[in-house]
């Protein structure tokens, strides 16, 4: 099952050129780009690992694409996303995030139903990959 999180996730995977154009767009607006990766892509897991510090000092997409290439090399089978941080006073948060790398095989999630008294059912989402293997060996 294809993971759909963040912007553009219902589109076909972006090409490197398209990624660079999106990054360029963010940089033109003064956003700071960061690269994050994870092998636990639960929808509620908002805090992915950071690949280096946010690149506050880069002015051009080429440098970020290089960092992305390094990250892909180090974590080829992880989910990797690009985030753009807007430091404007009153915003001060991520304003754009999109996935730029995904594992070859994505087993997806299952719905766990927990019976409660009075025919209540509690639902929880569980990743097959995360449940099956420990961190680092999942994808």
């Amino acid at each position, binding site marked *: 099952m294809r993971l759909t999180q963040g912007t553009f996730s219902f589109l076909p995977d972006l090409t490197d050129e398209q990624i660079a154009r999106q990054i360029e767009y963010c940089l*033109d607006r003064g956003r700071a780009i960061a690269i994050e990766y994870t092998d636990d892509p639960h929808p509620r897991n908002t805090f992915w690992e950071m690949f280096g510090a946010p690149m506050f000092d880069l002015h051009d997409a*080429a440098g970020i694409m*290089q960092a992305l290439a390094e990250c892909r090399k180090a974590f080829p089978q992880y989910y990797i996303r690009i985030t753009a941080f807007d430091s404007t006073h009153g915003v001060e948060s991520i304003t754009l995030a999109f996935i730029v790398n995904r594992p070859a095989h994505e087993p997806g999630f299952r719905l766990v139903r927990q019976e409660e008294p009075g025919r209540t059912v509690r639902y929880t989402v569980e990743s097959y990959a995360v449940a099956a293997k420990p961190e680092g060996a999942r994808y």
Partner: protein
Amino acid sequence: MTDNATRDAAAGPAAAAAASPAPTDGAGGSVASVLADTGVNELLRELDRDLIGLAPVKTRIREIAALLLVDRLRRSRGFSAGGPSLHMCFSGNPGTGKTTVAMRMAAILHRLGYIRKGHLVAVTRDDLVGQYIGHTAPKTKEVLKKAMGGVLFIDEAYYLFRPENERDYGQEAIEILLQVMENNRDDLVVILAGYKERMDRFFESNPGLSSRIAHHIDFPDYQTDELALIGERMLDAMHYRFDAESRIVFDDYLRRRMAQPHFANARSVRNALDRARLRHAYRLYAHPEVATSDESLTTIVAADLLASRVFSEGSAR
């Protein structure tokens, strides 16, 4: 995802397309139209006006500008030759304007559409070379990433290579530099700068570097009249001026100073003027009873210059 994110995403591609420099269409297609388009002429005129002397440097910049312009025209008609390599080496004596021109270069190349951002990252050995094993590569790569889309200016580049220490990490930095200069030619321009002889020796021991640099530009020493003009410009920028007498004394000063060792062209001029400012200030301070006028506050008189050691040593000899 927030609303913000969706809005960003929607605007993304269109905005990116608008931001990139519009390729000139083949319809107009004359050199004149492209010239008008890029404002290069104005840029070159500015360069002529602001920088004194440096004829070979200006010629080369004009040539590069012409090449980039013609390339644009050719591209618009479907002739492609690939981007030219614009890595440069500025060599010349101290104070001949290498750094100043490098700063300009970033703006010029940006205006010509060769580099995307037009910022300049000025570094020296310290910023590239690490202190222990494995420290250099990430450090150099970090700097190179920062320079992407602009100009990387490496001042006193020969310090990167220390032949007397074969385990020096400088070599590693040079290798990474070479790789990026070759592979990311479209992304950044590297400018090396340094004193002539040491630069030559540096290239002798690093032939790979020398051959990857297309433009070796020599910065000639300034003539006396050029230095005098530079001095006037500097004073003007600081809101000072010479009077008729001090102007003559300053010419004399320059001639004497040029004959002495460790003359650093425009930098020496700047230092001389800074010292003259000191004396000018002290002269006013020593005579508090004299009313200060705009005139006296801005005028450097002959005595301010004549107190210089250059004159006393000249007469002693």
